[in-house]
């Protein structure tokens, strides 16, 4: 099975946002939202030693995705090829997965009322095409391929030229989008846009910490009471109702 990965060459990216436009057109993303965004780090350092980079943010299709665990309906799942997808037929729009993503790659589509994000253009892959952002990138900064295929471009870029993951000390969940830089651009991005630990909305926290234990306690208590009743009855016979 393939293990898909994407590499963005930050030395080439000019921040034109053609990838965002192509992606939004391909997937009917409503205005104000995006599956992939271009975030400038802004100038860092002191004149004349200023540095800057564009962070091309998207779903990282992590090896241990916290969003899959956060989804109560099973709409978010990871396929055997590593791509994390959302089944819109199952999504109820509860939004638990949105703060769960350390990279903030998810949004709630206000038109469909369902959560949406990058899926490496899975439908295009099935047709044998590359993701829309890769084919559109004006600076040829994006590469897509199979990390298990030693002949692929991404294999060469990741294992040969040392493309890096955007991880932080707390969040190491195996992202599969890599960034290439010659003058420390990935480090700059890590500094400016460090992934945050997965969060749960307050309703989910209440469920996890209070209500779920309560529900089990309640069901357990009635079950126990019933068991006591059953054994008392076995021991005493059916004389319970005699007066």
């Amino acid at each position, binding site marked *: 099975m393939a293990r898909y990965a994407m590499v963005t060459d930050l030395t080439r990216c000019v921040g034109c946002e053609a990838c965002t436009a192509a992606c939004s057109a391909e997937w009917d993303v409503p205005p104000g939202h995006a599956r992939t965004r271009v975030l400038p780090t802004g100038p860092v350092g002191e004149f004349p030693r200023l540095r800057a980079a564009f962070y091309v943010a998207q779903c990282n299709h992590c090896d241990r995705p916290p969003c*899959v*665990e*956060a*989804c*109560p*309906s*099973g709409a978010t*799942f990871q396929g055997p090829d590593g791509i994390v997808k959302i*089944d819109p*037929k*199952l999504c*109820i*729009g*509860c*939004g*638990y997965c*949105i703060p769960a993503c350390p990279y903030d790659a998810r949004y*709630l589509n206000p038109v469909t*009322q*369902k959560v949406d994000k990058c899926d490496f253009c899975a439908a295009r892959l099935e047709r044998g095409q590359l993701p829309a952002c890769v084919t559109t990138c004006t600076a040829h900064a994006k590469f897509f391929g199979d990390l298990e295929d030693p002949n692929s471009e991404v294999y060469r870029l990741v294992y040969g030229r040392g493309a890096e993951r955007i991880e932080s000390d707390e969040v190491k969940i195996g992202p599969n989008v890599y960034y290439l830089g010659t003058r420390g651009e990935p480090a700059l991005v890590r500094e400016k846009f460090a992934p945050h630990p997965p969060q749960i*909305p307050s*309703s*989910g926290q*209440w*469920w*996890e910490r209070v*209500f*779920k234990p*309560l*529900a*089990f306690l*309640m*069901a357990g*208590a*009635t*079950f126990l*009471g*019933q068991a*006591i*009743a*059953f054994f*008392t*009855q076995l021991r*005493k016979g*059916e004389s*319970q*109702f*005699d*007066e």
Partner: protein
Amino acid sequence: MSEQATYLPAFSERMIKKHHVAIMLLHWFNAFVWLAELTTGAALIQSDRFRFAPQWYVELVTGVFGTRANMLRFHIAVGLTWIVVLAVYGIFGWRTYLREEVLKREIALDRDDVNWLRIRILRLLGRSNEPLPPQGIYNAGQKLFALTVYAMVPLIAISGLIMAFHWGPASVVGWAVVVHFLAVAVVVSGLMIHVYMGAVFPEEKPAFFSMITGMVPESYAYRHHRKWWEEVKMLERKRAAGELEEAAPQASSRVWAALRAREYWPAYWAALGLGLTLLAAFLLVGQGLGASGGFTRYLAFLIQLVAPGYAASHPYWSNYVQAGRPVLMDFLALELIGVALGGLVSGWLAGRLRWTTDRGPSVPVRARWALAFAGGLLSGFGARMARGCTSGLALSGGATLSAGAFVFMLSVFAAAFAGAYLLRRIWL
């Protein structure tokens, strides 16, 4: 049984009525819904954080439905049916059922009930030998369960609707998930006792059978529901003495009476029912009702069975016989089975099932059969020519304002009126 006779020799096995048939139907409908919804609901919760059921169970149930999306659709469809049925019961039974039965007898706890609960628990634990206080038609445990259920059902229904139809922003849907799970967990806790009492606990066997027959033995009523038994006795005495006026028919029994009426329903009531069914068909499957299309499917199925090559190559039958799509996996073909069942049940309820031949006064039976066959030939041919019959084209097409449907309707009535004059000897 002999045991009862030993300590309650005064009572024969006389049965007294406990449940109205509408309540029994509702009970078993509820039982089916809970079974279906808990089975699928437990399998729908997928992620490790939320799941109660083991992974193999999730996979097993998902396998039955093919895909998780199908399972979710089933869950929602059953849930919606449940909400509609409960709403209909609530609206039509508001006065006689909700206000009189539920509020006064099913959930109102009195002093006896509180004592009963205390003593019942102590006795179960072997800490007391006090006699149990007398109980009404429902004992305190049943009342407590009913109270819980009536409190939780609206929560389950509303949170389910919010999740199914994305009513509100993500935070609202997120809370709906929690409310749905929690309310179900509360009911399930009570349901365990309810099912145990009904299905396992030997002393409550009559309660279980009363949900099938509606009757309980008088000895059981005397021992378990003394206050209710006294009410029944009082009523019987009054009725015998002629003091009691016959009560006006209750709403639920009016519905029952309409179902059992030997006369046909007024045309407008049938029209309303048929219209709502048609509307439901548009909403649920995106097409109207039909009949001749279903016949064609079955015929195509038979032809395919006998001569698959002919069916696949024939320019007309090949429209129906397509590879990878079962001929009968079609709305109209399935619906036709339902039509037969619905007609059968309706006729059975009204006592109209009888082998007869409908004919005019001057037509012999065999001639009528021949005429019916000839009429069928013409109808079948005409329906296929027009691509639909009175149901599929005139009714369903008429409701969608299809121009062809109105042309068809006019020509059906024109031909039938003209034919009626020519063939008046058949029917008059």
